[in-house]
């Protein structure tokens, strides 16, 4: 852990060397999220609700998703860039060092420009929370916290899965973006909005709905059972196959030899 903090501060220092570049990429990240926010805002100018959800509820949903995503991308960027690490032989160097491989991949990249997205999420949350009409008792606070934390863990799992695939393909797989970037972008609306098929897929196969739709139901008071508040914890089980697949890929790893 101490070593990780050390890496962390090195990354901060190195990225702060290029302040304008850092500033612009962070602003860019902010703007991307802001454009999505604007499109929601414009739509709700015309429509009162979508799939039974109101503006503030959708905003909570949206900000939770980008917050979870930006946290996991800030920390797990190393896995997101993993194909590059494989391609340039950097991973071979990691293998011969006397430290845990996962730790090294994690520490290889920390992307602070992702804070731009995070700031956007915080701003929207600050706007939406008081206006949502939710009575903020401890269980609701817990629900929201679980959504964000378990959400970032789940996205992290998806990054690991993405990295695991690239053991076999070396190239990055663009179709994984449907789950990571797509989960973030389309997660701006509760997944039930997209219909039964999509919701089932995102419940049982890639459990993104477990950190978004179900706890949201409890949060806004559509469901009373506390079980709905705890569904994000279930989503953590998704880490197991991701991790297993990564180990499997690691065992079958052949260096690209450069």
């Amino acid at each position, binding site marked *: 852990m101490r070593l990780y903090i050390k890496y962390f501060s090195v990354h901060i220092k190195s990225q702060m060397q290029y302040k304008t570049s850092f500033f612009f990429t962070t602003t860019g990240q902010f703007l991307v999220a802001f454009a999505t926010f*604007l499109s929601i805002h414009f739509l709700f100018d015309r429509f009162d609700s979508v799939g039974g959800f109101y503006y503030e509820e959708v905003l909570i949903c949206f900000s939770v998703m980008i917050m979870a995503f930006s946290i996991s991308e800030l920390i797990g960027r190393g896995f997101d860039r993993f194909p590059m690490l494989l391609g340039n032989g950097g991973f071979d160097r990691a293998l011969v060092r006397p430290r845990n491989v996962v730790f090294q991949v994690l520490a290889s990249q920390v992307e602070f420009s992702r804070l731009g997205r995070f700031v956007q999420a915080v701003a929207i949350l600050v706007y939406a929370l008081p206006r949502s009409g939710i009575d903020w008792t401890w269980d609701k606070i817990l629900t929201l916290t679980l959504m964000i934390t378990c959400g970032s863990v789940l996205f992290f799992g998806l990054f690991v899965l993405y990295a695991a695939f690239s053991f076999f393909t070396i190239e990055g797989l663009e179709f994984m973006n449907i789950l990571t970037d797509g989960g973030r972008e389309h997660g701006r609306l509760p997944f039930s909005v997209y219909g039964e098929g*999509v919701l089932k897929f995102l419940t049982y196969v890639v459990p993104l709905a477990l950190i978004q739709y179900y706890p949201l139901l409890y949060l806004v008071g559509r469901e009373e059972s506390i079980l709905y508040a705890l569904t994000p914890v279930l989503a953590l089980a998704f880490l197991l196959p991701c991790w297993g697949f990564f180990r499997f890929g690691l065992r079958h790893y052949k260096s690209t030899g450069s």
Partner: protein
Amino acid sequence: MMYRALFRIRFTNSLQYRAAALAGLTTQFAWGFMYVLAFAAFYRSNPAAFPMTFQQTVSYIWMQQAFIAIFFIWMYDNSIFEAIESGQISYELVRPMDLYNRWFTMTTANRLSRAVLRCLPILIVAFVLPEPYRLVFPGEWARLGLFVLSMVLSLGVVVSFSMLIYISAFSTINSIGTRIVVGVAGDFLAGGYIPIPFFPDALRIAVELSPFGAMQNMPLLIYSGYLTGSALARGMLLQVFWVVILVCVGRVLLNRALKRVVVQGG
């Protein structure tokens, strides 16, 4: 002649990346489908508040996904940025070609080849989808003709607009910020996130007059049958107007930038 050869080279060059295109296709198809489903949900919640018909919106989304490489500003030609930032530009300057024309041709070829690779599979799948989510063929051939013409014009607007961003890289050294900021803002205003008819009225009217309204907005609304008659004619005239203006401004700015260019190091 020279530019035709350059166009051919760039075009066939980008056609090589078929596997990448295939992977991109699946992603794009899924994205398009999620957009369609989201709009369907909004439509169910209040059909009267929809500025376009649902069918028009669906056609808009599928055609947008199919020709994404033509319509979106952020699909830059990164080799041009690299040329400017790495100093390769000095080689370009000694070539007996006009730099503006050269880059214009390269970008156009690049965008067209990517669109050619991607459009057919998406179009085929979108045409055979079940009813409300299906891409429909425009009734008359005349409309299809106008769509193609307007798409050519919008390619012109997008390329001449991105030329301005390439040129701005001369004065910033690190252009990644401009690229993202202008790309995102521009694509939003052009109707890349939600179609322009969904904008609030004041913004919609302003954007329709701007170069952004002359990009993907025009061909997509023509294809879907939203734009007809005098509004259509006016929009296409605006497209021509913006191509001319943007090309002129780009040429002037490029000449100014080239006069001051300092190639760093050797």
